[in-house]
């Protein structure tokens, strides 16, 4: 008995935070952090809405740039929230509305001739709802004279179950603000100035929204589409903020059972690191050298979307989030829990997260000073490819540590999606 007390005192003396770490406050703080991140994402979307209102009221190069800047700013908090996916079914159920990609832009608006008009299997590939008040969908005529939330969300989004039919969310808005990026992995066209992104991204003129000197045709409908999609983004984010508020369903789900909450946290970190980011979003595009596989392909902002994903993963582990206004939200963390079990592993996890952060920072700097992300993944661009590959490698390495964390916290190794005792083959016959 005396020995035990002494051990406890020693532990307290050597690492108070570690001793205090308990799963319940950690998952509660995770829910607080999720709320803060979604609140900031919502604030970003509202600011974007204001700038888009200004653009539509008075289309000019200046108001278009302000709207684009607001979109870029709105992505910063949103991309951090992506670490909340995969572990929280409510988030997964909702996510497709706000961040679905890649999208067939020909369903929404005019596209370049090189996009192709060959009779095609995606019947919506060249539907161009902005130009057409009546659509032929699944063999039926659909009235599209009014562009409203119902048309975008219920009729067009994922029409015919084709996931490339993306009608709502950040990327639909991005397409309308920037237009197609026709520069592929090649050099920026002559005559454009500014950052690599400003020279290489899509180049839609502000007059596409100007009903008085309209370019691209159907400017009023284009404006209506942009307005509708932006309003939907705001209302979708409002809904998600509600899910994380005090009585929200997503919060209840993670705090109800702290163990399940920890699993949700680590599932999100691991799945975003490895499958989504290192795999589908980075490796696939690099392997195919295909700019169509670039996440923020119209704005060439992919370096930031990847970078802030990593920040989001770190937020979850460290229990620390720097809000859009610069304030820091900090509290009990997974890191504290791991440190109490195995201080060496916590150190390793932090180092691995930092290594990815460094690799992503190098990619971000290259994008801001040398070449855009889609140029980096070009075939034959050895140096650019290596920078992207380094991000993949560090993400893979950090996932290995996440797996060790899962084991150290005795959360099971393969029960990540809520399967039951059948995980153990022998249990089949219990």
């Amino acid at each position: 008995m005396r020995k035990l007390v002494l051990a406890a005192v020693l532990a307290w003396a050597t690492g108070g935070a570690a001793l205090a770490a308990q799963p319940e406050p950690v998952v509660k703080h995770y829910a607080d952090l999720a709320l803060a991140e979604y609140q900031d994402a919502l604030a970003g979307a509202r600011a974007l809405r204001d700038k888009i209102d200004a653009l539509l009221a008075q289309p000019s190069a200046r108001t278009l740039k302000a709207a684009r800047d607001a979109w870029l700013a709105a992505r910063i908090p949103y991309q951090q929230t992506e670490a909340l996916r995969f572990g929280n079914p409510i988030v997964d159920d909702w996510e497709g509305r706000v961040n679905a990609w890649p999208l067939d832009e020909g369903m929404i608006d005019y596209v370049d001739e090189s996009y192709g008009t060959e009779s095609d299997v995606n019947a919506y590939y060249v539907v161009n709802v902005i130009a057409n008040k009546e659509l032929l969908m699944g063999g039926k005529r659909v009235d599209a004279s009014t562009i409203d939330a119902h048309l975008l969300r219920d009729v067009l989004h994922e029409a015919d179950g084709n996931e490339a039919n993306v009608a709502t969310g950040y990327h639909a808005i991005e397409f309308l603000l920037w237009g197609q990026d026709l520069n592929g992995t090649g050099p920026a066209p002559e005559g454009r100035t500014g950052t690599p992104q400003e020279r290489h991204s899509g180049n839609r003129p502000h007059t596409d929204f100007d009903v008085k000197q309209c370019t691209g045709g159907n400017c009023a409908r284009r404006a209506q589409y942009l307005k509708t999609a932006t309003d939907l983004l705001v209302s979708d984010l409002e809904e998600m903020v509600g899910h994380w508020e005090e009585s929200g369903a997503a919060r209840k789900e993670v705090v109800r059972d702290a163990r399940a909450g920890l699993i949700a946290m680590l599932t999100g970190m691991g799945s975003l690191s490895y499958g989504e980011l290192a795999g589908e979003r980075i490796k696939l595009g690099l392997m195919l050298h295909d700019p169509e596989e670039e996440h923020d392909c119209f704005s060439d902002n992919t370096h930031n979307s990847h970078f802030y994903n990593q920040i989001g993963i770190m937020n979850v582990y460290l229990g620390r989030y720097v809000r859009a206004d610069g304030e820091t939200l900090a509290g009990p963390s997974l890191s504290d829990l791991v440190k109490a079990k195995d201080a060496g592993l916590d150190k390793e996890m932090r180092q691995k997260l930092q290594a990815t952060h460094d690799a992503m920072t190098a990619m971000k700097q290259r994008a801001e000073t040398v070449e855009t992300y889609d140029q980096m993944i070009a075939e034959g661009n050895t140096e650019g490819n290596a920078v992207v590959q380094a991000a993949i490698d560090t993400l893979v390495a950090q996932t290995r540590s996440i797996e060790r964390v899962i084991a150290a916290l005795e959360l099971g190794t393969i029960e990540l999606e809520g399967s039951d005792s059948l995980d153990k083959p022998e249990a089949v016959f219990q």
Partner: protein
Amino acid sequence: MRRIRRTAGLGLLFALTATGAAAAPRGDINEADRLRVQAVTKATTDFSKAEPYETMQGGAGTVDKLVNADIFSHPAANLDFEGRQEFLVGNGLFRKDWVSSPSSTQASDGLGPLFNARSCQACHVKDGRGSLPNLGTTGKMDSVGLLIRLALPPSADAARAAVSADADAAKWLPDPVYGEQLQPFAVSGLPAEGRVHIDYTEVPVALNGGETVVLLEPAYRVLDLGYGPMHPDVVMSPRLAPPMPGLGLLEAIHENDILDNAARAKPDGVKGRPNWARSPSTGETVLGRFNWKAGKADVMHQSSAAFSGDMGLSSPLFPSHYGDCTGKQPECLKMPHGAQPHLGEHEVPERLMKFVAFYSRNLALPKRRDIDNERVLAGKKLFYESQCIACHVPKYVTRRDAERPEHRFQLIWPYTDLLLHDMGPGLADGQTEGQAGGTEWRTPPLWGIGLTKTVNPAATWLHDGRARTLLEAILWHGGEAQAARDRVAAMTPEERADLIRFLESL
């Protein structure tokens, strides 16, 4: 994966199975395990409650996710992060729209020249079934999810030659001009092959209890032929894209368990026989499990065939860059292709095919719902007692030595024997594929069938999507399944509702 080596030729193997002798015991498990597997896979006779683990119809990979249109698109729950990465890269390729050559994106081109679809997901909608817009309305069919296989019966001379050479059954041939299937799309500058036109006839069927169900009987024609007439003897077989979940688990069922299904005594004159397919990777003849006639040996074989036939993309197993273009379509063979010497000799190199196959093998089954519901249990009892399970065999325990650890030694509930059955003239396509004759179809798995319309509201059932409801699908059963079908027709309306309720819980 280990395969049965067949040096003795088909004749001997048929002789063995025809004797009714049980296949050899599985080599992957010891005697104690064998007895346990036998006990756990025995069809239940207790319908007072659900069976242990019944909810986990796809074994440990079963997912417990919100039931929405994405429910067929999740990775198996027991995949580790590394597996998830392969899965997601495969997902990216599965939904990728391939483009025609030449394109600036050299690794993503090569589509066609003739094709049915630009991407996998265009037909396998949300990883579920394909659908037919305007089903029931006579006219041109714009769906991409239904393709038409073309085949010519062998001439009498060819059949005689095959017999004297002791070869496999004389092979059916592709149409000399249009090849093995009709591609209604082509890259620009090339005519498409034609359009499918469907005529429907309504067939009312009276059921016990005063209910009448109207079935739709389709007849297929091809219009707007782009390359002149088809051979007059061509037989057309329509095939709808099947759902994707659980394919890796079907692959991990032991061959001998399937051969046992064939050997086992069954009621109502139900027979069931395996199809045999030549594996293009090894050249060996192996048990066929995939596609509507079990004509494909494994997921890689099936996926590679689809890349070639449906999208016109070459891969190691199907190396032609021109897909289904024939020698009588010379303009097709002159089109640019998408293979780049520095990226490998195929439009879709082996490593990309491996991602696609990995994805296809690891799509999760959803958890079953309402397994303890009284009506579901009553429906389950009717399903079992009406002898639907003679072909829709409920359970298996997968191989201990399956290629992937996630698939090993899992108790799974696919409700299929993976065998061919004579399904009667109503469903017959008249086409032979391997050993599968013109009236024969492979028993399709039923797992996940209750969520068909959750995933794709327009989806329908059977090989050509003619059944608008599960009951219509049952009523089309004929041949070996006639007796079981007649039992369903003779049920009270309440019993039939329970039976459907059970299917909807899968």
